[in-house]
C-alpha cells in the first residue's frame, strides 16, 4: 500500500524585545544565573503581571509577515502545571483566543510554490531552565529566561515530507529575521521546534495516529527525525501493526526516536482566563501601521531581484535567504553596474569562504564598498580575475582594502607589452613541441603556452595581451 505522510510543526520563537513580557527584566541571553529576575518573574506572593506592549507589537508583526488574520479581541489564559522551572506553577499563555489565526508560509516544492497553512500564533511567556549536575542528587534552577516573550506558531497539517518541513522552517526563520522580531538561534534556544507526524493510506482524508517528536536541536535534526519516524511508521503499518499515539524523543547520536514515558504527557492544564490581565483589544489602525512598516519580505525581494537585476531564480533565492546577505548584495549593486557579477562573487567566493570558516554574514570583516572596489580593479585591468580570488581571500582574513593588498603583495597585472613579449619569447624557446603543434593547427597548444606565460608571471600577466602577443610571435 502506498502511504501519505502528514506532518505538523509547532515552533516556539523568542521575541527580541529588550524586556520580558510581563515585567521589566532584561531578556539578554546568558548572564549569571538568576540575575535577570525580579519579584514578578520569580512568581513571588502578591505580584502581578503587566503586559509589555512591544511584545504584542512584535507578535503582530510576525503574524502579519506570515499572512495571518489579527482578531480584534484576544486574551491571556493560565496553563497550570507544576515544574520547578515555572515559578508561578502556571504559564501565562493564550488558549481559545490567540493573537493571530489563519496564515500561511509559501515554500517551493519541485519548482512550484506550495502554501503551508498556519493555524494560529499566540503569545506566551518562556519558562526557566533546570541545570542538572552530573552525579548530584539535586537539580538547580536558573530563572533568567523565565518571562521572555515567546510566540508559538502552529502549522496546519499541510506538510507532506521531511524536506517540506525543513523548507518551511528555513522560510519561517528567514521571514522572522527579516522583520527583526527574533534572531531564531536554535543553539541558544530562541527557536525551538516540536513536530508531529502520521501516515495514512494515499487518498484517505482521515488522519492516521500521530506521534509527537521532541528534543530537536537543529533543522537537520528535524528533518532526520521525521525521516526516521516516517520509515519506522511505514514499516509498522506495512507489517499490519498499529501506531501508538505517543511522544517520542529524538536521539541525535543514535539517529533514532525513543518513546518518552507516557506519564509525562498525561497533563490536564486546566486553562482558564488569567484574572490578573485584562483582555487585549487590538486597534485596527495600529495593525495597519505595523503592516505598512514591514520591510520587503524574502519572496518579494526574490521577485524584484529577478525582475530588476535580471538574476536567475536560483541566484535570487540564495541571495534573499538571509537578510544580511541580501543587504550586502544590494549595497554592492547600488555602487556597481553589473548585478550578475556581484551575485557570482557573493554566491561562489563569499558564501564558499563563509561556509568553510563557519562565519556569519555579519562577521565579514570588510564592507560592500571594498568588494566593489575590487571588482572595479578587475574591470580596469589592474588585477586579473584569478588574482582577484587571492585578493578576496586576503580581504576575508585581514579585512584590508583590496588596493592595499594588491600594492603590498605586488599583484598588479602586467600589461607592459615589451615585458610580456620577452617572457613569451622565452616560453616559445622552451616549448618547441607545443609551437610545432600550434603551427600544425592545434589551437589547444596556444592555451598551454598562455598558461606557461601566466605561470612565469605568477598569474599577473594580462591574459588577453599574452594571447595577442603569442599569436603575433608565432605568426
Amino acid at each position: 500500500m502506498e502511504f501519505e505522510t502528514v506532518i505538523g510543526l509547532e515552533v516556539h520563537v523568542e521575541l527580541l524585545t529588550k524586556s520580558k513580557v510581563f515585567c521589566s527584566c532584561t531578556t539578554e541571553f546568558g548572564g549569571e544565573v538568576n540575575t535577570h529576575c525580579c519579584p514578578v518573574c520569580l512568581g513571588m506572593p502578591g505580584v502581578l503581571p503587566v503586559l509589555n506592549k512591544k511584545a504584542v507589537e512584535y507578535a503582530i508583526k510576525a503574524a502579519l509577515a506570515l499572512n495571518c488574520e489579527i482578531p480584534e479581541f484576544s486574551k491571556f489564559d493560565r496553563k497550570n502545571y507544576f515544574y520547578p522551572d515555572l515559578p508561578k506553577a502556571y504559564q501565562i499563555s493564550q488558549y481559545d483566543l490567540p493573537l493571530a489565526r489563519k496564515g500561511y508560509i509559501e515554500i517551493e516544492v519541485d519548482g512550484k510554490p506550495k502554501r503551508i497553512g498556519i493555524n494560529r500564533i499566540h503569545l506566551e511567556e518562556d519558562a526557566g531552565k533546570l541545570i542538572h549536575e552530573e552525579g548530584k542528587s539535586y537539580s538547580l534552577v536558573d530563572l533568567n529566561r523565565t518571562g521572555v516573550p515567546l510566540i508559538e506558531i502552529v502549522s496546519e497539517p499541510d506538510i507532506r515530507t521531511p524536506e517540506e518541513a525543513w523548507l518551511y522552517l528555513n522560510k519561517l526563520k528567514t521571514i522572522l529575521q527579516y522583520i527583526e522580531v527574533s534572531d531564531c538561534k536554535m543553539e541558544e534556544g530562541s527557536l525551538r521546534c516540536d513536530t508531529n507526524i502520521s501516515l495514512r493510506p494515499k487518498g484517505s482524508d482521515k488522519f492516521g495516529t500521530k506521534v509527537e517528536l521532541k528534543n530537536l536541536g537543529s533543522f537537520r535534526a528535524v528533518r532526520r527525525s521525521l525521516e526516521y519516524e516516517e520509515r519506522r511508521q511505514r514499516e509498522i503499518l506495512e507489517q499490519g501493526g498499529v501506531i501508538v499515539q505517543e511522544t517520542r524523543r529524538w536521539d541525535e547520536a543514535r539517529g533514532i526516536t525513543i518513546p518518552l514515558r507516557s506519564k509525562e504527557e498525561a497533563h490536564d492544564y486546566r486553562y482558564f482566563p488569567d484574572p490578573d490581565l485584562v483582555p487585549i483589544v487590538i486597534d485596527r489602525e495600529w495593525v495597519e501601521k505595523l503592516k505598512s512598516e514591514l520591510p520587503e519580505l524574502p519572496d518579494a525581494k526574490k521577485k524584484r531581484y529577478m525582475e530588476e537585476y535580471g538574476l536567475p531564480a536560483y541566484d535570487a533565492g540564495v541571495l534573499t535567504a538571509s537578510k544580511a546577505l541580501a543587504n550586502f548584495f544590494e549595497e554592492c549593486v547600488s555602487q556597481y553596474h553589473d548585478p550578475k557579477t556581484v551575485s557570482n562573487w557573493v554566491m561562489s567566493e563569499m558564501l564558499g569562504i563563509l561556509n568553510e570558516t563557519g562565519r556569519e554574514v555579519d562577521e565579514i570583516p570588510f564592507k560592500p564598498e571594498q568588494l566593489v572596489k575590487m571588482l572595479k580593479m578587475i574591470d580596469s585591468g589592474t588585477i586579473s580575475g584569478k588574482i582577484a580570488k587571492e585578493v578576496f581571500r586576503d580581504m576575508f582574513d585581514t579585512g584590508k582594502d583590496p588596493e592595499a593588498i594588491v600594492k603590498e603583495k605586488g599583484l598588479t597585472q602586467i600589461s607592459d607589452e615589451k615585458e610580456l613579449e620577452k617572457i613569451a619569447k622565452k616560453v616559445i624557446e622552451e616549448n618547441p613541441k607545443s609551437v610545432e603543434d600550434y603551427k600544425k593547427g592545434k589551437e589547444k597548444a596556444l592555451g598551454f603556452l598562455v598558461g606557461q606565460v601566466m605561470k612565469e608571471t605568477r598569474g599577473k600577466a594580462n591574459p588577453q595581451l599574452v594571447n595577442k602577443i603569442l599569436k603575433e610571435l608565432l605568426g
Partner: protein
Amino acid sequence: MNLSELTIHEAHELLSKKEISSEELTKAVLDRIDKVEEDIKAFLTIDKERALEISKKVDKEGDFSNPLAGIPVAIKDNICTKDLKTTCASKILANFVPPYDATVCEKLKSEKAVIIGKTNMDEFAMGSSTENSGFFATRNPWDVDRVPGGSSGGSAAAVAADECIFALGSDTGGSIRQPASYCGVVGLKPTYGRVSRYGLVAYASSLDQIGPITKDVRDCAIVLNAIAGWDEKDSTSVNLPVPDFTKSLVEDVKGMKMGLPKEYLGEGIEPEVREAVLSAARVFENLGASVEEISLPHTEYALWAYYIIAPAEASSNLARYDGIRYGVRAKDSDDLIDLYKKTRSEGFGREVKRRIMLGTYALSSGYYDAYYLKAQKVRTLVKADFDRAFEKYDVIIAPTAPTPAFRIGEKTGDPLKMYMSDVCTIPVNMAGLPAISIPCGFSGGLPVGLQIIGKPFDEATVIRAAYTFEQATDFNTKKPAL
C-alpha cells in the same frame, strides 16, 4: 481618655497642633496591645521597635500635613510589607519576608503612617471567622468566646480593641465587611479596580480588593483617599479620577433613593439583625431618603457560583507555594513530586486544601463548562440584577451578615454553615461593587452591621449615606468592655 482610642481625624488634629507626638500615640497603641492582646490575639507580628523608630522620625520631621502622618496602622498579613514578615497566616509562608511593599503600603508609608504590625486572618483569606489561621484564632473584643469574623478578623478586632488607630483588610467575599460588622467597626470594600492589588497575596484575583477598617466613616474616607487610584503595576486597577472622599462627609440623604432587597431579609437572617436593618431604613427615611423594597432575584445563586470561581482562581494562585524558591519546604522528600506533596500537605491547612481541591476539580477538563463557565454566567446575572437596581436607586441597603458574631468552634465542623455567613456580602464581590459596613444596632450585646452598596466607582455616595447615618445614631461610639 487613652490615646489609642482616638480616631484618625482626632489624632491628626492633636498631632497637627503638636499636643501629642506620634511617638506618644504609637506607644499608647503598643501599650494597649500589651494589655489586651493576650485576650484578643489580633496580631501575627508586632513590629514594635521599627514602629517606634518611625514615629520618632515623623515627629522629628514635624510635618503632619498628611492626615495619616504619624498614625499607627495595622496591616492584614496577606498584604506585603517590605522587610516585614508576611505569612498570610499560613505555615507555608511562616518565614516569608517580602523584598517589596504592596502599592497600598508604599502609599501609606509615603503618607508617613506608622505600620505597627501584621494582623491575623483566615489562612490565605479563606474563611469567615479567623479560626482558619495556621497559627491561632483571634477573638472578638465584644465577647472573647466569639469569633471576630473573617477573613480580616485580626484587623477588625485590632480596630475594635483600640490596638491600632486603623487597619487595612482585604475583601474577596466579605472579608472586610463581615468582620467589621461582627466587631462593631466600619469596613469598606472599594469597587474592584479602585485600589491596586499589587502586593496583595492573591486568593481569588477577580474578586480580591483591599480596603480600610476604621473606627468611623470619616476615617474610612481619609484612608480610601490615601490608598485609591490607578497603579501601573496592576492591570486590573482602573484609570479613573479619584475624588476627595472627605468631601462626601456631608449629613444629607434627602431625596436619595435606597433599595432594600427582600432576598437579604428572608430565611436565615436572624430576627434581631432584620429588625436592626429595618430600623436603619426608618432612620434614613426620617432623614429624607426614600427606601423601597426591591428584588435581586439571582442572589441565592451567588454564593454557590462564588464557591466555584474563588476556589478555581485560588487553585491556580496557590500553586506557586511549592517550597522551591521561598517559604517553608518539607524535609526528607524522596523526589520532586514527593517534595511538592509533602510541602503542600504540611504547609496548607484544611480549608485551603478543601478550596484548592474544589477549584482544581472545577477547572478540570470535562468539568470546566459545567462548573467554571456556568458560574461565570451566574456572575453575569448577579451583576445584571444590580445594574437594573441601580438604574433606579442610588444605593442598596442590606444586612452585612445574617447573624452577629458566632461562638468560636460553632461552625468549624460544618463548612457550608460557615460559608452562609458571607451570603449577604458575596454578591457584591461578584458584581465588583463598592460597599461599606457600619454599626447599626446590637443583638444580645453583639454589634450588627448595616451594609450600604453603591454603583461602580461611586464610593462617594456610599460614604455620604454611611456618614449621615452615623451622625444620626450613636452605635459607633459604643466600645467593647475589655
